[in-house]
Protein backbone atom coordinates (compact mmCIF):
# COMPACT_ATOMS: atom_id res chain seq x y z
CA UNK A 1 0.00 0.00 0.00
CA UNK A 2 1.23 3.50 -0.86
CA UNK A 3 1.62 5.91 2.03
CA UNK A 4 -0.98 8.67 2.25
CA UNK A 5 1.62 11.18 1.13
CA UNK A 6 2.57 9.05 -1.89
CA UNK A 7 -1.07 8.67 -2.88
CA UNK A 8 -1.55 12.44 -2.71
CA UNK A 9 1.65 13.11 -4.63
CA UNK A 10 0.34 10.92 -7.42
CA UNK A 11 -2.66 13.20 -7.70
CA UNK A 12 -5.36 11.60 -5.56
CA UNK A 13 -7.88 13.47 -3.44
CA UNK A 14 -8.65 11.22 -0.49
CA UNK A 15 -11.63 10.77 1.78
CA UNK A 16 -11.29 10.45 5.52
CA UNK A 17 -13.97 9.51 8.06
CA UNK A 18 -16.56 11.35 10.17
CA UNK A 19 -17.39 11.78 13.84
CA UNK A 20 -16.78 9.10 16.45
CA UNK A 21 -17.78 10.80 19.71
CA UNK A 22 -21.31 11.71 18.68
CA UNK A 23 -21.70 8.21 17.20
CA UNK A 24 -20.60 6.54 20.44
CA UNK A 25 -23.18 8.56 22.37
CA UNK A 26 -25.89 7.18 20.14
CA UNK A 27 -24.66 3.74 21.08
CA UNK A 28 -25.05 4.48 24.76
CA UNK A 29 -21.90 6.28 25.88
CA UNK A 30 -22.89 8.45 28.85
CA UNK A 31 -21.74 12.02 29.46
CA UNK A 32 -18.80 11.79 31.85
CA UNK A 33 -17.95 8.24 30.81
CA UNK A 34 -14.45 7.60 29.44
CA UNK A 35 -14.89 7.32 25.66
CA UNK A 36 -11.64 5.43 25.15
CA UNK A 37 -12.49 2.82 27.78
CA UNK A 38 -14.97 1.45 25.25
CA UNK A 39 -12.05 0.03 23.25
CA UNK A 40 -11.70 -2.50 26.05
CA UNK A 41 -15.32 -2.68 27.28
CA UNK A 42 -17.28 -2.58 24.02
CA UNK A 43 -14.89 -3.23 21.12
CA UNK A 44 -17.82 -4.55 19.07
CA UNK A 45 -19.59 -1.19 19.16
CA UNK A 46 -16.44 0.76 18.35
CA UNK A 47 -15.84 -1.64 15.46
CA UNK A 48 -19.29 -0.88 14.08
CA UNK A 49 -18.41 2.79 13.77
CA UNK A 50 -15.16 2.01 11.99
CA UNK A 51 -17.01 -0.36 9.65
CA UNK A 52 -19.69 2.20 8.83
CA UNK A 53 -17.07 4.67 7.61
CA UNK A 54 -15.26 2.08 5.51
CA UNK A 55 -18.66 1.18 4.02
CA UNK A 56 -19.33 4.87 3.34
CA UNK A 57 -16.21 5.10 1.20
CA UNK A 58 -13.45 6.37 3.49
CA UNK A 59 -9.88 5.79 2.29
CA UNK A 60 -8.74 6.14 5.87
CA UNK A 61 -10.35 5.82 9.28
CA UNK A 62 -9.38 7.18 12.66
CA UNK A 63 -9.25 5.41 16.00
CA UNK A 64 -11.28 5.87 19.18
CA UNK A 65 -8.32 7.36 21.06
CA UNK A 66 -8.77 11.15 20.97
CA UNK A 67 -8.55 11.50 24.77
CA UNK A 68 -6.19 8.54 25.19
CA UNK A 69 -3.34 10.50 26.77
CA UNK A 70 -2.41 9.86 30.40
CA UNK A 71 -3.64 13.31 31.48
CA UNK A 72 -7.18 12.84 30.19
CA UNK A 73 -7.26 9.19 31.25
CA UNK A 74 -6.24 10.17 34.80
CA UNK A 75 -9.68 11.73 35.25
CA UNK A 76 -11.00 8.18 35.15
CA UNK A 77 -8.13 6.55 37.04
CA UNK A 78 -6.91 4.98 33.79
CA UNK A 79 -3.60 6.84 33.40
CA UNK A 80 -1.60 3.60 33.56
CA UNK A 81 -3.65 2.03 30.79
CA UNK A 82 -2.76 4.51 28.06
CA UNK A 83 -0.67 2.11 25.94
CA UNK A 84 -3.20 -0.70 26.21
CA UNK A 85 -6.21 1.49 25.41
CA UNK A 86 -4.52 3.03 22.38
CA UNK A 87 -3.30 -0.31 21.12
CA UNK A 88 -6.84 -1.66 21.37
CA UNK A 89 -8.20 1.39 19.57
CA UNK A 90 -5.87 0.90 16.62
CA UNK A 91 -6.45 -2.85 16.52
CA UNK A 92 -10.20 -2.31 16.15
CA UNK A 93 -9.80 0.14 13.28
CA UNK A 94 -7.17 -2.03 11.57
CA UNK A 95 -9.44 -5.05 11.75
CA UNK A 96 -11.93 -3.18 9.59
CA UNK A 97 -9.44 -1.27 7.41
CA UNK A 98 -7.62 -4.42 6.28
CA UNK A 99 -4.49 -4.01 4.21
CA UNK A 100 -5.61 -1.39 1.73
CA UNK A 101 -7.08 1.37 3.88
CA UNK A 102 -5.19 3.65 6.22
CA UNK A 103 -5.60 3.77 9.99
CA UNK A 104 -5.00 7.19 11.53
CA UNK A 105 -4.31 6.99 15.25
CA UNK A 106 -6.14 9.92 16.85
CA UNK A 107 -4.22 12.02 19.38
CA UNK A 108 -6.08 14.95 20.97
CA UNK A 109 -4.93 17.64 23.40
CA UNK A 110 -4.30 17.04 27.10
CA UNK A 111 -6.42 19.94 28.34
CA UNK A 112 -3.36 21.32 30.13
CA UNK A 113 -1.93 24.73 29.34
CA UNK A 114 1.87 24.67 29.34
CA UNK A 115 2.33 28.35 30.14
CA UNK A 116 0.33 27.99 33.35
CA UNK A 117 3.13 25.82 34.69
CA UNK A 118 0.92 22.95 35.89
CA UNK A 119 2.66 20.59 33.49
CA UNK A 120 6.06 20.50 31.74
CA UNK A 121 6.90 20.00 28.07
CA UNK A 122 8.64 16.74 28.93
CA UNK A 123 5.56 15.41 30.71
CA UNK A 124 3.44 16.18 27.67
CA UNK A 125 6.00 14.54 25.40
CA UNK A 126 6.03 11.36 27.50
CA UNK A 127 2.23 11.13 27.51
CA UNK A 128 2.06 11.54 23.72
CA UNK A 129 4.92 9.08 23.25
CA UNK A 130 3.07 6.33 25.11
CA UNK A 131 -0.05 7.03 23.11
CA UNK A 132 1.76 7.09 19.76
CA UNK A 133 3.58 3.85 20.46
CA UNK A 134 0.37 2.13 21.58
CA UNK A 135 -1.42 3.23 18.43
CA UNK A 136 1.38 2.03 16.17
CA UNK A 137 1.60 -1.28 18.02
CA UNK A 138 -2.12 -1.77 17.41
CA UNK A 139 -1.77 -1.23 13.67
CA UNK A 140 -2.00 2.51 12.93
CA UNK A 141 0.11 3.52 9.93
CA UNK A 142 -0.40 7.24 10.45
CA UNK A 143 -0.94 9.37 13.55
CA UNK A 144 -3.16 12.42 13.57
CA UNK A 145 -2.44 15.02 16.23
CA UNK A 146 -5.71 16.95 16.17
CA UNK A 147 -7.82 19.74 17.65
CA UNK A 148 -4.63 21.42 18.78
CA UNK A 149 -4.61 25.12 19.66
CA UNK A 150 -1.16 25.63 21.20
CA UNK A 151 2.09 25.44 19.20
CA UNK A 152 4.12 23.97 22.04
CA UNK A 153 1.69 21.20 22.90
CA UNK A 154 1.30 20.33 19.21
CA UNK A 155 5.08 20.31 18.85
CA UNK A 156 5.44 17.93 21.79
CA UNK A 157 2.87 15.59 20.24
CA UNK A 158 4.26 15.70 16.70
CA UNK A 159 7.81 15.15 17.92
CA UNK A 160 6.72 12.29 20.17
CA UNK A 161 5.14 10.64 17.11
CA UNK A 162 8.03 11.40 14.76
CA UNK A 163 10.79 10.31 17.13
CA UNK A 164 9.20 7.12 18.46
CA UNK A 165 7.29 5.61 15.54
CA UNK A 166 7.71 5.20 11.80
CA UNK A 167 4.11 6.29 11.09
CA UNK A 168 3.23 9.27 8.91
CA UNK A 169 2.50 12.22 11.17
CA UNK A 170 -0.45 14.52 10.55
CA UNK A 171 -1.21 17.63 12.60
CA UNK A 172 -4.46 19.56 12.46
CA UNK A 173 -5.44 22.57 14.56
CA UNK A 174 -8.79 24.17 15.35
CA UNK A 175 -9.24 27.72 14.07
CA UNK A 176 -11.87 30.38 14.71
CA UNK A 177 -12.64 33.22 12.36
CA UNK A 178 -11.73 36.69 13.64
CA UNK A 179 -13.91 39.73 12.99
CA UNK A 180 -11.45 40.77 10.25
CA UNK A 181 -11.81 37.41 8.47
CA UNK A 182 -8.44 35.96 9.42
CA UNK A 183 -8.13 32.69 11.34
CA UNK A 184 -6.57 31.98 14.73
CA UNK A 185 -6.71 29.20 17.30
CA UNK A 186 -7.88 30.20 20.78
CA UNK A 187 -4.20 30.40 21.73
CA UNK A 188 -3.55 32.86 18.92
CA UNK A 189 -1.90 30.55 16.37
CA UNK A 190 -2.49 31.40 12.70
CA UNK A 191 -2.48 28.79 9.92
CA UNK A 192 0.85 30.24 8.77
CA UNK A 193 2.36 29.85 12.27
CA UNK A 194 1.14 26.26 12.32
CA UNK A 195 2.69 25.34 8.97
CA UNK A 196 6.12 26.62 9.92
CA UNK A 197 6.16 25.06 13.40
CA UNK A 198 4.67 21.70 12.48
CA UNK A 199 6.94 21.15 9.47
CA UNK A 200 9.82 21.92 11.75
CA UNK A 201 8.55 19.43 14.36
CA UNK A 202 8.28 16.70 11.72
CA UNK A 203 4.68 16.58 10.50
CA UNK A 204 4.29 15.57 6.85
CA UNK A 205 0.59 16.35 6.46
CA UNK A 206 -1.15 19.32 8.11
CA UNK A 207 -4.59 20.83 8.21
CA UNK A 208 -7.58 21.85 10.28
CA UNK A 209 -10.37 20.11 12.16
CA UNK A 210 -13.53 20.87 14.15
CA UNK A 211 -14.60 24.54 13.96
CA UNK A 212 -17.88 25.87 12.64
CA UNK A 213 -18.42 24.04 9.38
CA UNK A 214 -17.05 23.44 5.92
CA UNK A 215 -17.25 26.97 4.59
CA UNK A 216 -14.71 28.42 7.04
CA UNK A 217 -12.33 25.61 6.17
CA UNK A 218 -11.92 27.04 2.69
CA UNK A 219 -10.45 30.20 4.22
CA UNK A 220 -8.11 28.19 6.43
CA UNK A 221 -6.86 26.09 3.51
CA UNK A 222 -6.24 29.23 1.48
CA UNK A 223 -4.14 30.68 4.30
CA UNK A 224 -2.10 27.47 4.44
CA UNK A 225 -1.67 27.35 0.65
CA UNK A 226 -0.57 30.99 0.55
CA UNK A 227 2.64 30.03 2.28
CA UNK A 228 3.07 26.37 1.32
CA UNK A 229 2.03 25.03 -2.05
CA UNK A 230 3.34 21.53 -1.51
CA UNK A 231 2.43 20.03 1.86
CA UNK A 232 -0.59 17.69 1.81
CA UNK A 233 -3.56 19.31 3.58
CA UNK A 234 -6.25 17.43 5.52
CA UNK A 235 -9.62 18.92 6.54
CA UNK A 236 -11.97 17.38 9.11
CA UNK A 237 -14.91 19.81 9.34
CA UNK A 238 -17.86 19.86 11.73
CA UNK A 239 -21.33 19.63 10.29
CA UNK A 240 -21.84 23.29 11.12
CA UNK A 241 -22.13 24.61 14.67
CA UNK A 242 -24.04 22.58 17.24
CA UNK A 243 -27.65 23.52 17.94
CA UNK A 244 -29.68 22.31 20.90
CA UNK A 245 -33.18 21.18 20.04
CA UNK A 246 -35.71 19.45 22.28
CA UNK A 247 -33.18 18.11 24.72
CA UNK A 248 -30.79 16.92 22.03
CA UNK A 249 -27.76 18.39 20.34
CA UNK A 250 -27.94 18.45 16.58
CA UNK A 251 -25.60 19.61 13.86
CA UNK A 252 -27.56 21.19 11.10
CA UNK A 253 -25.34 20.90 8.05
CA UNK A 254 -26.83 18.11 5.98
CA UNK A 255 -24.72 15.78 3.85
CA UNK A 256 -25.75 17.76 0.76
CA UNK A 257 -24.88 21.09 2.34
CA UNK A 258 -21.46 19.85 3.38
CA UNK A 259 -20.85 18.20 0.05
CA UNK A 260 -21.39 21.36 -1.92
CA UNK A 261 -18.22 22.79 -0.38
CA UNK A 262 -16.06 19.81 -1.33
CA UNK A 263 -15.17 21.08 -4.77
CA UNK A 264 -14.33 24.53 -3.40
CA UNK A 265 -12.15 22.96 -0.72
CA UNK A 266 -10.28 20.88 -3.27
CA UNK A 267 -9.84 23.91 -5.50
CA UNK A 268 -8.47 25.83 -2.52
CA UNK A 269 -5.86 23.11 -2.11
CA UNK A 270 -7.19 20.46 0.28
CA UNK A 271 -6.01 16.89 -0.41
CA UNK A 272 -7.89 14.87 2.19
CA UNK A 273 -11.46 15.62 3.24
CA UNK A 274 -13.45 14.15 6.09
CA UNK A 275 -15.68 15.20 8.94
CA UNK A 276 -15.51 16.05 12.62
CA UNK A 277 -18.31 16.56 15.20
CA UNK A 278 -21.81 15.89 13.88
CA UNK A 279 -20.77 14.21 10.65
CA UNK A 280 -22.14 10.74 9.92
CA UNK A 281 -21.50 7.97 7.41
CA UNK A 282 -24.13 9.69 5.23
CA UNK A 283 -22.03 12.86 5.16
CA UNK A 284 -18.93 10.85 4.27
CA UNK A 285 -20.76 8.91 1.58
CA UNK A 286 -21.81 12.15 -0.06
CA UNK A 287 -18.31 13.63 0.24
CA UNK A 288 -16.85 10.45 -1.28
CA UNK A 289 -19.27 10.64 -4.22
CA UNK A 290 -18.21 14.21 -5.00
CA UNK A 291 -14.51 13.39 -4.61
CA UNK A 292 -14.88 10.47 -7.02
CA UNK A 293 -16.70 12.64 -9.53
CA UNK A 294 -13.84 15.19 -9.36
CA UNK A 295 -11.34 12.55 -10.40
CA UNK A 296 -12.97 12.06 -13.77
Amino acid at each position, binding site marked *: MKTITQAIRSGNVMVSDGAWGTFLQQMGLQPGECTESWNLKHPDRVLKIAQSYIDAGSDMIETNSFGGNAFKLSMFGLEDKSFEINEAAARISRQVAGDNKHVLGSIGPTGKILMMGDVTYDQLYEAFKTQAMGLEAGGANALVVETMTDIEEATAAVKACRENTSSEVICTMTFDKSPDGSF*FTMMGVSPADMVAAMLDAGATIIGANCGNGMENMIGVVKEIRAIDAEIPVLVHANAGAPV*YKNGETVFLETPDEMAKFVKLLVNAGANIIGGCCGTTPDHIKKIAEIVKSLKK
Partner: protein
Amino acid sequence: MDKNELLTKLAECVEFGKVNKAAPYPPTMKGQDGADELTKQALEIGIKPVDILNDALIFAMDKVGEKFTQKKIFVPQMLISAKAMNVAMEHLKPFFQSGEVKRKGKFIIGTVSGDLHDIGKNLVAMIVEGAGWEVIDLGVDVDAAKFIVAINENPDAVVGLSALLTTTMPNMQKIAAEIKSQFPDVKLVIGGAPVNDEFRDEIGADGYSPDPQSAVAYLNALVA
Protein backbone atom coordinates in the same frame (compact mmCIF):
# COMPACT_ATOMS: atom_id res chain seq x y z
CA MET B 1 6.20 58.72 40.97
CA ASP B 2 2.99 60.45 41.93
CA LYS B 3 -0.27 58.68 42.49
CA ASN B 4 -1.61 58.87 38.97
CA GLU B 5 1.65 57.91 37.40
CA LEU B 6 1.95 54.87 39.66
CA LEU B 7 -1.59 53.69 39.02
CA THR B 8 -1.14 54.14 35.27
CA LYS B 9 2.05 52.10 35.39
CA LEU B 10 0.39 49.39 37.46
CA ALA B 11 -2.52 49.24 35.04
CA GLU B 12 -0.06 48.79 32.17
CA CYS B 13 1.62 45.92 34.00
CA VAL B 14 -1.70 44.14 34.37
CA GLU B 15 -2.84 44.91 30.84
CA PHE B 16 0.36 43.58 29.28
CA GLY B 17 1.08 40.87 31.83
CA LYS B 18 4.15 42.15 33.65
CA VAL B 19 3.94 40.08 36.85
CA ASN B 20 7.06 41.24 38.67
CA LYS B 21 10.50 42.69 38.04
CA ALA B 22 12.10 39.27 37.45
CA ALA B 23 9.46 38.16 34.93
CA PRO B 24 10.84 37.96 31.38
CA TYR B 25 7.46 38.70 29.84
CA PRO B 26 6.66 41.00 28.09
CA PRO B 27 10.13 41.57 26.60
CA THR B 28 9.45 45.29 26.10
CA MET B 29 9.13 45.75 29.88
CA LYS B 30 12.22 43.73 30.81
CA GLY B 31 13.88 44.83 34.04
CA GLN B 32 11.05 47.17 35.02
CA ASP B 33 8.97 46.86 38.15
CA GLY B 34 5.91 44.67 37.72
CA ALA B 35 2.44 44.46 39.25
CA ASP B 36 3.93 42.97 42.42
CA GLU B 37 6.40 45.80 43.15
CA LEU B 38 4.13 48.61 42.02
CA THR B 39 1.19 47.53 44.17
CA LYS B 40 3.48 47.42 47.19
CA GLN B 41 4.81 50.89 46.37
CA ALA B 42 1.32 52.25 45.85
CA LEU B 43 0.27 51.09 49.32
CA GLU B 44 3.49 52.45 50.84
CA ILE B 45 2.92 55.96 49.53
CA GLY B 46 -0.60 55.86 50.90
CA ILE B 47 -2.76 55.26 47.84
CA LYS B 48 -6.09 53.87 48.98
CA PRO B 49 -6.57 50.15 48.26
CA VAL B 50 -9.93 50.89 46.68
CA ASP B 51 -8.26 53.23 44.20
CA ILE B 52 -5.64 50.61 43.38
CA LEU B 53 -8.40 48.13 42.76
CA ASN B 54 -10.66 50.35 40.68
CA ASP B 55 -8.31 52.68 38.86
CA ALA B 56 -5.55 50.21 38.09
CA LEU B 57 -6.56 46.55 38.36
CA ILE B 58 -10.21 46.58 37.29
CA PHE B 59 -9.48 49.28 34.74
CA ALA B 60 -6.74 47.12 33.17
CA MET B 61 -8.64 43.83 33.28
CA ASP B 62 -11.57 45.53 31.59
CA LYS B 63 -9.28 46.44 28.68
CA VAL B 64 -7.94 42.88 28.60
CA GLY B 65 -11.43 41.41 28.45
CA GLU B 66 -12.41 43.86 25.74
CA LYS B 67 -9.38 43.01 23.58
CA PHE B 68 -10.06 39.29 24.07
CA THR B 69 -13.63 39.70 22.89
CA GLN B 70 -12.38 41.49 19.77
CA LYS B 71 -9.81 38.71 19.24
CA LYS B 72 -6.97 41.22 19.41
CA ILE B 73 -5.41 39.06 22.12
CA PHE B 74 -5.78 35.35 22.84
CA VAL B 75 -5.82 32.99 25.80
CA PRO B 76 -2.09 33.22 26.67
CA GLN B 77 -2.14 37.02 26.97
CA MET B 78 -5.29 36.85 29.06
CA LEU B 79 -3.77 34.27 31.39
CA ILE B 80 -0.61 36.27 31.94
CA SER B 81 -2.66 39.41 32.67
CA ALA B 82 -4.76 37.47 35.15
CA LYS B 83 -1.56 36.28 36.80
CA ALA B 84 -0.31 39.87 37.16
CA MET B 85 -3.67 40.87 38.62
CA ASN B 86 -3.63 37.99 41.10
CA VAL B 87 -0.19 39.01 42.34
CA ALA B 88 -1.45 42.56 42.90
CA MET B 89 -4.60 41.24 44.63
CA GLU B 90 -2.46 39.36 47.16
CA HIS B 91 -1.33 42.74 48.52
CA LEU B 92 -4.92 43.91 48.79
CA LYS B 93 -6.15 40.79 50.60
CA PRO B 94 -5.90 42.25 54.11
CA PHE B 95 -8.13 45.14 53.07
CA PHE B 96 -10.77 42.81 51.71
CA GLN B 97 -10.64 40.81 54.94
CA SER B 98 -10.95 43.92 57.13
CA GLY B 99 -13.86 45.13 55.03
CA GLU B 100 -12.11 48.33 53.99
CA VAL B 101 -12.44 47.29 50.35
CA LYS B 102 -15.61 45.64 49.24
CA ARG B 103 -16.22 43.41 46.25
CA LYS B 104 -19.13 43.91 43.93
CA GLY B 105 -20.67 40.60 44.88
CA LYS B 106 -20.17 36.86 44.80
CA PHE B 107 -20.07 34.63 41.76
CA ILE B 108 -20.30 30.85 41.99
CA ILE B 109 -19.01 29.07 38.90
CA GLY B 110 -18.59 25.45 37.83
CA THR B 111 -18.47 23.16 34.80
CA VAL B 112 -21.60 20.99 34.83
CA SER B 113 -21.64 17.28 35.65
CA GLY B 114 -20.30 14.95 32.99
CA ASP B 115 -18.02 17.67 31.63
CA LEU B 116 -14.36 17.77 32.67
CA HIS B 117 -13.27 20.84 30.71
CA ASP B 118 -12.01 23.76 32.71
CA ILE B 119 -10.16 26.18 30.42
CA GLY B 120 -13.18 28.30 29.50
CA LYS B 121 -14.58 28.21 33.01
CA ASN B 122 -11.21 29.32 34.42
CA LEU B 123 -10.97 32.21 31.99
CA VAL B 124 -14.40 33.47 33.01
CA ALA B 125 -13.51 33.07 36.69
CA MET B 126 -10.31 35.09 36.23
CA ILE B 127 -11.94 37.92 34.32
CA VAL B 128 -14.87 38.12 36.73
CA GLU B 129 -12.48 38.23 39.66
CA GLY B 130 -10.50 40.89 37.85
CA ALA B 131 -13.68 42.90 37.57
CA GLY B 132 -13.94 43.07 41.35
CA TRP B 133 -16.13 40.09 42.19
CA GLU B 134 -15.44 37.35 44.70
CA VAL B 135 -15.35 34.08 42.78
CA ILE B 136 -16.27 30.72 44.29
CA ASP B 137 -14.97 28.14 41.84
CA LEU B 138 -16.55 24.70 42.29
CA GLY B 139 -14.36 23.08 39.61
CA VAL B 140 -15.47 20.60 36.95
CA ASP B 141 -18.08 17.83 36.86
CA VAL B 142 -20.26 19.75 39.35
CA ASP B 143 -23.73 18.34 39.98
CA ALA B 144 -26.86 20.18 41.14
CA ALA B 145 -26.32 19.15 44.78
CA LYS B 146 -22.91 20.82 44.88
CA PHE B 147 -24.24 24.02 43.35
CA ILE B 148 -27.08 24.03 45.86
CA VAL B 149 -24.73 23.62 48.83
CA ALA B 150 -22.72 26.59 47.56
CA ILE B 151 -25.84 28.69 47.05
CA ASN B 152 -27.04 27.86 50.56
CA GLU B 153 -23.72 29.13 51.89
CA ASN B 154 -23.83 32.21 49.63
CA PRO B 155 -27.49 33.01 49.06
CA ASP B 156 -26.76 36.35 47.42
CA ALA B 157 -24.36 34.93 44.83
CA VAL B 158 -24.89 34.86 41.09
CA VAL B 159 -24.36 31.40 39.60
CA GLY B 160 -22.48 30.57 36.39
CA LEU B 161 -22.80 27.22 34.59
CA SER B 162 -20.22 26.17 32.00
CA ALA B 163 -20.17 23.34 29.43
CA LEU B 164 -17.88 22.53 26.53
CA LEU B 165 -19.43 19.30 25.37
CA THR B 166 -22.68 19.31 23.46
CA THR B 167 -23.52 16.09 25.27
CA THR B 168 -23.51 17.75 28.67
CA MET B 169 -26.00 20.44 27.71
CA PRO B 170 -28.89 18.27 29.01
CA ASN B 171 -27.10 18.21 32.37
CA MET B 172 -26.91 21.98 32.31
CA GLN B 173 -30.65 22.04 31.76
CA LYS B 174 -31.26 19.70 34.72
CA ILE B 175 -29.00 21.68 37.03
CA ALA B 176 -30.60 24.97 36.01
CA ALA B 177 -34.05 23.53 36.70
CA GLU B 178 -33.06 22.24 40.15
CA ILE B 179 -31.44 25.49 41.16
CA LYS B 180 -34.41 27.52 39.97
CA SER B 181 -36.92 25.28 41.72
CA GLN B 182 -35.17 25.77 45.07
CA PHE B 183 -33.92 29.31 44.56
CA PRO B 184 -36.20 31.07 42.07
CA ASP B 185 -34.50 34.40 42.74
CA VAL B 186 -30.93 33.29 42.15
CA LYS B 187 -29.58 34.68 38.89
CA LEU B 188 -28.18 32.06 36.53
CA VAL B 189 -25.77 32.84 33.73
CA ILE B 190 -24.55 30.21 31.27
CA GLY B 191 -21.64 29.95 28.86
CA GLY B 192 -19.48 27.58 26.82
CA ALA B 193 -18.84 26.73 23.18
CA PRO B 194 -22.08 24.86 22.39
CA VAL B 195 -24.62 27.02 24.25
CA ASN B 196 -26.39 30.11 22.94
CA ASP B 197 -29.11 32.54 23.89
CA GLU B 198 -31.85 30.31 22.53
CA PHE B 199 -30.68 27.53 24.83
CA ARG B 200 -30.60 29.97 27.75
CA ASP B 201 -34.21 30.76 27.05
CA GLU B 202 -35.13 27.10 26.79
CA ILE B 203 -33.62 26.16 30.15
CA GLY B 204 -34.83 29.26 31.99
CA ALA B 205 -31.45 30.78 32.76
CA ASP B 206 -31.17 34.55 33.12
CA GLY B 207 -28.06 35.36 31.15
CA TYR B 208 -25.94 33.95 28.35
CA SER B 209 -22.29 34.95 27.93
CA PRO B 210 -20.50 34.14 24.70
CA ASP B 211 -17.23 35.40 26.21
CA PRO B 212 -15.81 36.35 29.64
CA GLN B 213 -16.30 40.07 29.12
CA SER B 214 -20.02 39.70 28.57
CA ALA B 215 -20.28 37.71 31.81
CA VAL B 216 -18.73 40.72 33.55
CA ALA B 217 -21.12 43.09 31.79
CA TYR B 218 -24.06 40.94 32.90
CA LEU B 219 -22.87 40.78 36.52
CA ASN B 220 -22.04 44.46 36.75
CA ALA B 221 -25.46 45.39 35.42
CA LEU B 222 -27.02 43.45 38.30
CA VAL B 223 -25.30 45.62 40.89
CA ALA B 224 -25.27 48.89 38.98
